[in-house]
């Protein structure tokens, strides 16, 4: 919510500048120098490049980075692709940030492989590059990675689902992300591992891609129910997909007797866990990823020490129906730490 209340003033300011920029650029020239806070050329610059500008996960990431930039006395500039998968847009953003003289770039790669040449060029110019949330391929293409362990996130809800079924035979639907996207594959595989089954196990009766979208999640669930009406466990890549599945199950009057588990820990999703629509979710912490990233760049600027390797930013199982033998926190904790 805070981002919405924050929007008008900055929007107005920029809209004013836009109008001026478009119509009478020379008039804006004198005012803009003082209008932008980043006039001081001596300060350390940090760039944050997300997959999109609009996904709440990345909005939260940006908030975390802004706050950390203030605390560490560095200057943040942000950019994003136009859509999830916009590699060319991210390449352009990297180039422009390097031209702007950033000390470090934090990036959530849209395409783990395709972004690598651009990252290498930036690194060759002495820029520290850190991947957030999504690793590059190879992972060593960046200096460091700050991310959730997505396999672990899947494992937690897999273990939870197994315990909650209490030995009943499971008929599982998996509502996945998209082919070839590492985050989705890792969560999916983690879930199967946590549930104690392998890919191709007969208890998985339906698998569909959702793109992490609520409407597509609903369609996917409707189709799965058409195929196998007796589904009793639903794994979803994220909470929007889970809520779509819930809507489809509710239409069939099945919402009470099907276990839905998910990953992400967004505030809407955590509310849905509290309301009992989703049984459990694995919560991750985008704010922390960004904050750690900004801090690492500030450190690099100060004493030249480069962050390296993988830093797990943690994941927590959130549910109000705790199961024996599975560590979890309740939704009160979840809502305090949720994002979006």
């Amino acid at each position, binding site marked *: 919510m805070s981002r919405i209340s924050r929007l008008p003033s900055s929007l107005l300011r*920029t*809209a004013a500048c*836009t*109008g001026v*920029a*478009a119509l*009478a*650029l*020379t008039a*804006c*020239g*004198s005012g*803009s*120098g003082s209008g*932008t806070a*980043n006039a001081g*050329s001596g300060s350390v*610059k940090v760039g944050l490049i997300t997959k999109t*500008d609009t996904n709440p996960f990345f909005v939260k990431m940006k908030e975390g980075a802004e706050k950390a930039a203030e605390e560490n006395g560095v*200057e*943040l*500039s*942000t*950019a*994003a692709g*136009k*859509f999830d*998968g*916009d*590699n*060319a*847009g991210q*390449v*352009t*953003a990297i*180039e*422009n*940030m390097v*031209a*702007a*003289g950033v000390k470090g770039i934090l990036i959530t790669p*849209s*395409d783990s*492989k*395709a972004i*690598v*040449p*651009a990252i290498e060029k930036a690194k060759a110019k002495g820029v520290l590059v850190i991947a957030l949330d999504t690793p590059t391929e190879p992972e060593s293409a960046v200096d460091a990675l700050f991310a959730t362990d997505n396999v672990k996130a899947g494992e937690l809800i897999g273990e939870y689902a197994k315990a909650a079924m209490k030995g009943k035979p499971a008929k599982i639907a998996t509502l996945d992300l*998209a*082919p*070839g996207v590492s985050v989705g594959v890792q969560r999916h595989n983690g879930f199967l591992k946590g549930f104690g089954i392998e890919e191709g196990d007969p208890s998985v009766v339906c698998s569909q891609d959702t793109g992490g979208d609520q409407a597509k999640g609903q369609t996917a669930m409707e189709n799965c129910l058409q195929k196998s009406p007796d589904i009793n466990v639903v794994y979803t890549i994220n909470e929007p997909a889970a809520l779509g599945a819930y809507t489809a199950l509710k239409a069939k009057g099945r919402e009470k007797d099907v276990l839905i588990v998910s990953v992400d820990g967004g505030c809407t999703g955590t509310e849905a866990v509290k309301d009992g629509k989703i049984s459990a979710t694995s919560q991750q912490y985008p704010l922390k990823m960004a904050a750690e990233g900004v801090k690492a760049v500030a450190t690099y600027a100060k004493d030249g020490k480069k962050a390296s390797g993988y830093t797990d930013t943690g994941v927590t199982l959130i549910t109000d129906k705790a199961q024996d033998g599975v560590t979890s926190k309740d939704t009160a904790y979840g809502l305090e730490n949720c994002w979006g």
Partner: protein
Amino acid sequence: MTATSTPYAELKAPTTIRRLLTQPTTGPLAALLLACVFFSVSTDQFLTGGNFSLIVQQVMVVGTLAIGQTLIILTAGIDLSCGAVMAFGSIMIAKMAAEGSLPPLAAIALGLVVCGGFGLLNGALVQKIPLPPFIVTLGMLNVAFALTHIYSEEQTVTNLPGPLTALGQTFPLGKTDITYGSLVTIALFLAFAYALSSTSWGRHVYALGNSPEAARLNGIRTSRLTIGVYTVAGLLYGVAALLLISRTGVGDPQAGQTDNLDSITAVVLGGTSLFGGRGSVLGTFIGVLIVGVFRNGLQLMGVASIYQTLITGVLVILAVTVDQISRKKAR
């Protein structure tokens, strides 16, 4: 033309200046120069040779698409499939050369032919059935998009052989590094500017856009001309595909998804009328640069990318408004 009511006439300016002021590219050029002045004053890094070279590199792919788009829009058509056709061409070239058995140059040639084939098909459907360009190219957008994803199996193609990325390499010019691809793009713009303004083919394209019926009655073979324009545009998308691969160093099945709209944006910002028959490819070059300069300049200032989208939107509406007003005056 009611000379007394136009503001320019009151200036009593010499004819050359008056002509300059009513040129469709004058407005866009002024906007571009003002933007450059603004960003030069606002940031230390904007006004450098390296940065200008960077901007041209960044716009060369959309720029090359936009040449084809300009040709089609001049005939009062539109092409929504250009980005998707380019993506298919690029994944084809990359895969054939990196994983298939084709030598790189043959893969490039094949990519050009395939993209040209898409253009030919677009043109034939628009002309022979006939179908509205909007619908034909919307369908082709989906066809090319799907083929890209089927053919690539959603996988990014890496480890490209050298000749595929040659155009992305740089050579030094003074203290600035210039990309070979930038030169190709600029050469294409100049070649098509010449072809449109100084050849009978170019005059026929304008005539076709102004009134297909009048063009036909004047002995122009409009059917062949239309199909030709779409085919040439397709070939240009093939060149754009090669530029894209050379720039990013990979074959990316997700590429080009907003390039159709970006190319139309460039055409409109460059003063070419969406109703056909008026405009120029040099205007389109200016339009492409306007977008590139704003994106680069705002990033240098530390402004988030969403505002670049906002500004581009405002500029497009302004550009179309100017086009409409000048059309009314011309009537």
